[in-house]
């Protein structure tokens, strides 16, 4: 249980970071985000993405545009706001620190 909980916590944080990274590359549709995440082998179901996107949007990190679709009604395309880009920069730094911490921790163990 404890192991699972820790895993969940780690995944949750990294998922958010990854999503922001994917969106930072340009305007993108929700299911394409999923595709990118799959490619990165960060397996999630689509249903988890929508609450996350909504939360990020409400925190001012994301915004979206309605883009006409060839089939069906228009789709929501997400992009980063200024605050979002700042956040990504901050998270980049945090990730470097964490990565260093983990590398270092592993070295000490050896």
């Amino acid at each position, binding site marked *: 249980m404890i192991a699972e909980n820790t895993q*969940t*916590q780690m*995944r*949750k944080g990294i*998922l958010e970071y990854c999503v922001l990274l994917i969106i930072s590359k340009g305007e993108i549709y*929700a*299911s394409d985000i999923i595709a990118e995440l799959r490619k990165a082998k960060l397996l*999630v*179901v*689509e*249903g*988890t993405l*929508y*609450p*996350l*996107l*909504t*939360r990020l949007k*409400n925190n001012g990190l994301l915004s979206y545009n309605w883009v006409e679709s060839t*089939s*069906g*009604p228009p*789709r*929501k395309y997400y992009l980063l706001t200024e605050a979002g880009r700042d956040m990504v920069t901050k998270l980049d730094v945090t990730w470097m620190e964490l990565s260093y911490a983990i590398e270092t921790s592993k070295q000490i163990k050896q």
Partner: protein
Amino acid sequence: MKRTLNINIGNSIIHIEEEAYEMLTAYLNEIKAHFATSADHYEIVTDIENRIAEMFREILSQQQKQVVEVGDVNHVIAQMGTVGQFEEVDEETESAVPPHHEGIKKLYRDTDEGIVAGVCAGFSHYLEVDVRWIRIIALISCFIGGSGILAYLIMWMIIPRAITRSEKMYMKGEAVNLHGFIRNFEEELAGNPLLKRSTGFIAELVEAIGRVLGKVGKLLLKIIAGFIILFGCFFLLFLCGTLAMVLGFWDANPNEYFPLNIVNSDYLSTMIFAFFISFAVPLVALILYAIRVFFNTRPINRTVSFGLLIIWLFGIMTSVFYITKVVSEFKEEAAFTEVRDLKPYGTYNLVINRSRFFSKEDSVRYQINSSAYRGRVILNDEDGPFQPPRNISLSIEKSDNGKTTLTQNFSAQGKNFDVALKHAQNIHYDFSQQDSVLNFSPQLQLTKNANWRDQRVDLILKVPVGAKLLLNRDFDRYLQRYGSWSCEGEDDYSEDVKVWTMTEDGLKCNQHKNDTPQTEAP
């Protein structure tokens, strides 16, 4: 064949099968419940719905089909993730998930597991009791004045049948959500023969009896139908034969015989035909219905049966019309009397003479020289079904003036008095006296082609006091007030001829013709 629904999801119209729809609804309800506590739940759910609609459209266009099936919904759910999978990732909303609850239970009839109409099976789900106990109770209650049967029928009418998947799940008390659906599906796929086997011995027995009764009942119905076809066809043939006969194909003058000579010959044929239709059409309908039961096919279509009905109604109306017409011919009655003096004798011998004299009419009919018919007799005493009723009565009374007379009273009916009188005049009755023998004819004759109009002859024989009459037993049929039965007593009643004497008080029976006392042999 499956029922489909049109739904509006994410601003798209999607055709979806009913089962798939139920599954999707359960899934969306679960998602809504999951995000209910979240402030942005409306937006999240809308996003998810839009995406689901998009996935449906993709599936439909890729597979080039019209309707979303259960498999497609499963595919979409797998991609979108179940609420359980959300929980793994999203801890914030974890507390919002309602604990897995048992669904609300509703009473339905379970026709999948039921034997008759699934009432017992439905109760077993509702009360969570094994169905066999409920069936035993139901069976016992049937023997308490049949109240169980009535109760069953009422419940059959009142309790709805579980048709859709969600109704079946309500019936079993399973939560109507995705877990429930998936479990339900798996059970259906894997456990079907197993479920059947798990019904107990009693259930199997009851089922078997029901099956046997059903088959026996069906067989019995078919046998009855077969008999109806067979006898119906025979009767129809007989009817056709009768029609041919009375319409005169086999006999030149059917209207000379009794039941038919009631009807005026002008419209006899029409009336016979109308009668034939009135009887034959229902018979044909009965045969056709029996054929339908026997062969499980519809031998004729609606138009033909409607036509038959019209023909039948026409036949009935024509029959009624002519019946009233004929009945009106019996409205008035007329009578006339002839009195004849008889030669006086001390003893009269009254005889029913079966032979009758040739009349003038007969001589014409049988082409005998009209001057030579007198004295010839016809031996004729047919007493069959086609003879008119013997409307002859004889009463013997005391003569006031010492003479012996015979009064012949001829009467008949008609639509008015003149016609009735004419009919009465058509009567020909043979009576003759040969010395002391009085010959009475057993029947009256009508002139040729005369219709039967209740023609009757009332004979009154007046004899003086003291005269003796020898009466044959044959007269019982015609004699008013007296009969051989009133002259029996202790005597041997096998004696045919009885002696009567006219007294002041009327006719008295005194003795046998040969009243020699019987001697007992030692």
